[in-house]
């Protein structure tokens, strides 16, 4: 990492975590910092990617290690409340993230909680929705949206709080190709610092500049920009396909 005068936006130092009922730790000695990068994060199922996001947001408490926001150590619940205002987490499942009956209310929920007046919250929400191409969605009932629409609305609920860093947990999962493309365009347009968990490397390639992986309980940086080819000695290679991860 290049030395800069400014402290990193977010820094993790020697984070370890284990779930109470497991014998061996899930994550161990995680060191990581982010300034203005756009980072992709990969790793096998159950390797603790989602858990890492929860630790960063203060939803789970790390066993050891420190989390620093702009050089300031986060310790108390108050500190983490501050983290939550400045970092936005997009859940793997949008149905867990959208809980208000209408889209406008859901998007306005965050701004209202951090002290906006109802009128301000309404304006912020409407302009965020517009930014994501969701004009006219304000009064739609959230549970009646399609899967792809839900994902974009969930993104709106987070952007309405003007986060400095976005954490996206498998955002392209279960999206049809069109919505996936739309999401890529949106993320490229936002110009936001972000960390994206995904198994979909094409998606990461189009939205990120660096790649990290969770390997053997810790976070490692991957090499970049490689062109490779591989041979399919199996049948059906002429069909669009994916390789087992």
């Amino acid at each position, binding site marked *: 990492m290049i030395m800069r005068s400014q402290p990193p936006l977010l820094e993790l130092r020697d984070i370890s975590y284990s779930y109470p009922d497991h014998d061996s730790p899930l994550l161990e000695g995680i060191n990581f910092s982010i300034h203005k990068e756009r980072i992709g994060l990969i790793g096998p199922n159950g390797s603790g990617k989602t858990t890492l996001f929860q630790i960063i947001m203060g*939803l789970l408490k790390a066993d050891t290690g420190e989390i620093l926001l702009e050089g300031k150590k986060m310790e108390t619940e108050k500190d983490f409340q501050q983290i939550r205002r400045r970092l936005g987490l997009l859940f793997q499942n949008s149905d867990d993230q959208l809980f208000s009956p209408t889209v*406008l209310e859901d998007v306005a929920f965050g701004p209202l909680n951090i002290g906006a007046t109802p009128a301000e*919250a309404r304006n912020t929400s409407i302009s965020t929705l517009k930014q994501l191409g969701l004009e006219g969605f304000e009064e739609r009932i959230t549970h009646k949206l399609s899967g792809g629409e839900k994902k974009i609305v969930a993104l709106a609920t987070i952007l309405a709080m003007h986060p400095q860093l976005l954490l996206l947990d498998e955002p392209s999962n279960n999206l049809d190709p069109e919505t996936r493309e739309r999401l890529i365009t949106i993320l490229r347009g936002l110009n936001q610092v972000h960390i994206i968990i995904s198994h979909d490397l094409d998606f990461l390639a189009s939205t990120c500049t660096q790649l990290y992986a969770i390997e053997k309980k810790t976070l490692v940086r991957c090499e970049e920009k490689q062109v490779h080819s591989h041979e399919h000695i199996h049948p059906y290679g002429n069909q669009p396909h994916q390789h087992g991860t």
Partner: protein
Amino acid sequence: MIDEPFATGSTLFHKRDARVKIVGAASISLVLALNSSIPAAVAGCLVTGSLLILSRPEPLSLCRRIATINVFTLFLWLTLPLTYGGEEMMQISFLKLHLDGIHMASLITLKTNGIFFCFLALLATSTTVSLGHGLERLGLPRKLCFLLLFSYRQLFVIHQEYQRLRRAARLRGFIPANSLHTYRTYSHLFGMTLVKSWNRGERVHQAMVLRGFSGKFIPLDQPQLAKEDYLFLITMLLLSLLLTGLSLSLLPLS
């Protein structure tokens, strides 16, 4: 299965604010519920029936709902004339029919349907969401209204989860019968639904915390009442007054 077939439309009922509709529906239903004279009940039915026609409900769903409501009144017609007691009697072969019972059954049928028409015309023309917000603005405890709105939001998710599990059971040859196995299976299906609901609740709570929720609900402001809303409210209250007068003046003399 869970739907709001009457909530979309463009009649004057659909356009009115939920608050005036709730107050209007409450006052008319209350008057009708407390009335005990048949002519006033007929008048009530006519009034609310006309309101219902003005709200132009979708006929098929309407018939289905009216039928549902009247399953119970049918039960009363089958039982009350035989069981109600009272002096006046009519004998048809071996059955003794009590006129009082028939009177009671007709009264209840009229009242039930009258109130139901009013409900369909005034409340079913709003979405559950706007009813929830309306109740909140009318002063119901905020926690209760949020409980209503959040439950409404999650109903569909949970119902789908249950149905997927039930489908899995069906695919493994489950055929409901009167057996302990059947009851245990339903318990497992519902138990698993509960477990999933519970865990979803934790996750949704996390989502709220992440968006700065700290134990206080702040509602978005809602549109002010328009002139037409006030006019509508006054009309509904006048109708209730009229029906009150009618039911008092027609009170059966004892």
